[in-house]
């Protein structure tokens, strides 16, 4: 198979379309109708988040099926951002509970970006040692590390929680970041697989010029691996940004809680009988915004990387 791990869009295996794509047939009409339905179901919830977030929570009940925001207002956003006063918030159906979203946003950013930077750098370094350097026991050690793929995170969650608690790292960024920031079998495997396929010519020229292994790593291998590193970074960032379970166990204090947890907290603080849906949707939108921006910026890379990384 001439396909490898995410070399980027250029390496998409081009295949001529099987049929003239412009010809009309009943089958194609059915196919496009189906796709239209899928796109509608996929996108509608996103629109509904926006529509609800721009509504007045009290008036939502009066016209729940309106396709446009009911009583258009930025109130929900002001509420979750803590700009609105309690009186204003309650006038629009808020619970009076505000969400210090700036803090949670900061926490999410720290958690996701530090963990991503750490895991990508360390995985790349280890992948280099496991692919381009030559030492006894290399493949054995690699196979042992990769065995971590077999252990579901659900199994290590509890013991890891106990460990982090013993280390006194609950409610700290270190406790949040370290377990997933030092080693992740997938990142290591993915980068090693790429580095194995790199040509040795440049490297050997550098050796002849007297460059040591570290210099080769930073000056040659790392720049050559920019594309797969970008892919892993994206996937790791998305994972960390959306992570919920681990922060739920580790972060009880607002000062380190990421946005995913904050949404849960905000939901619980709003009354069960009449939740502040407008506020919740505004908060959800803010929480999802970085992902949507990433998607706009790197959508094509994400789409292609998922296709390729899944191939055997």
């Amino acid at each position, binding site marked *: 198979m001439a396909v490898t791990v995410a070399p980027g869009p250029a390496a998409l295996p081009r295949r001529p379309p099987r049929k003239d794509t412009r010809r009309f047939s009943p089958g194609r009409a059915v196919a496009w109708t189906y796709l239209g339905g899928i796109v509608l179901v996929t996108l509608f919830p996103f629109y509904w988040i926006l529509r609800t977030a721009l509504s007045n929570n009290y008036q939502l009940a009066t016209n729940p099926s309106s396709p446009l925001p009911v009583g258009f207002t930025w109130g929900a956003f002001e509420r979750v951002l803590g700009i609105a006063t309690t009186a204003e918030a309650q006038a629009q159906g808020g619970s009076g509970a505000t969400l210090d979203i700036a803090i949670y946003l900061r926490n999410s950013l720290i958690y996701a970006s530090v963990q991503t930077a750490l895991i990508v750098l360390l995985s790349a370094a280890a992948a280099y040692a496991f692919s381009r350097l030559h030492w006894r026991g290399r493949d054995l050690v690699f196979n042992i590390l990769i065995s971590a793929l*077999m252990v579901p*995170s659900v199994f290590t969650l509890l013991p890891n929680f106990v460990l982090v608690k013993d280390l006194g790292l609950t409610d700290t960024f270190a406790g949040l970041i370290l377990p997933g920031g030092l080693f992740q079998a997938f990142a290591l495997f993915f980068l090693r697989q790429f580095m194995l396929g790199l040509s040795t010519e440049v490297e050997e020229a550098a050796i002849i010029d007297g460059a040591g292994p570290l210099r080769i790593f930073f000056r040659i291998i790392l720049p050559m691996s920019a594309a797969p590193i970008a892919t892993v970074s994206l996937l*790791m960032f998305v994972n960390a940004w959306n992570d919920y379970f681990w922060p739920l166990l580790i972060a009880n204090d607002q000062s380190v809680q990421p946005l995913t947890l904050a949404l849960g907290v905000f939901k619980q603080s709003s009354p069960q009988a009449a939740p502040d849906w407008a506020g919740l949707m505004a908060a959800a939108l803010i*929480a999802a915004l970085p992902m949507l921006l990433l998607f706009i910026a790197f959508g094509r890379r994400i789409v292609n990387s998922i296709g390729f990384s899944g191939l055997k």
Partner: protein
Amino acid sequence: MVVTSQGNHTTPVRPWPGEPGVVATTANSPVKKRSSPRKGRRPTVTRSAAARRRDLPVALLLILPAVIGFATFYAYPTLRGIYLSFTEFHVLSPPKWVGLANFRELFGDDVFWHSLLVTGYFVLLSVVFGTLTSLVTAVVLDRVTRSSALRGVILLPFLISNVIAALVWQWMLDPTLGIVNIALKHLTGHSVLFFGSGGWAIPSLAAISVWKWMGYYALLIFAGLQTIPPTIYEAGRVDGASEIQMFRRLTVPLLRPILVMVVVLTVINSFQLFDIVQVTTEGGPANASNVLQMYIYRKAFRQFDFGYAATMSLALFALLIAVTFTQLRLARANESDLS
């Protein structure tokens, strides 16, 4: 926290034998070609012992953080988890060895078996509907368009967190104000308590899960479709096969390894379902959606019964291992389909 957890899906990669893959490199860069004749594709084969000795210290330095991470947060917790499942442990006092007591409790625990059943039901729904819709979507995409924008759109739910997916669907499925229920009432005359009734809780959760993962799996299958040579379909067409026949007789068998992978990923992820339940039903109503992971969480963090929670985790682990091995065997049995 990443590998195969429900919230953090990891892109699956499987090693392929032989060639390390064709990669765009600096093949045509102005390199002095005075390197030795051993510039082959497998540098592992020939290297002097001196080079090995020189590489070793640097290699150890570079892998050290990863090895520490592996030992501290994967190997040790795995062993400790197995150990804890034989103990009574309430976090504040040290664990007390109780032998098989937890396992005996497990067998007699109706709530555990019920949650296993509930989880199994969720897994079944997710696998059947998830795989079917992603397969159909991938095939349709492959046949009518190569627009990567469209592929991007269906991937969108994969990028947002389970928490947000759960929140927006809970709002849309709200019994009185939710747009889905308003539409239902308009069409059928009555609304449905999607999260409030025992019968609907699990199907609703499965629907959210399918919505979130469908695009991702569709893209995996789509990538698999790209590897099927078009000549096979041309041959089929010459033989007079219809589209449906070709789908059943050509596409599905050739895709089997990827389909097996998608099914197993869905199973593994679905067994670890937690985020969506925690946000929407919290296991209710009356344990109707008390999936295994939810029950484990409650045991550990509401009742602080860590020993028993570890035992249930071990059971879940064993289950997932069994699934993975079955997958490996199934996948291997079908490897010859396209070679």
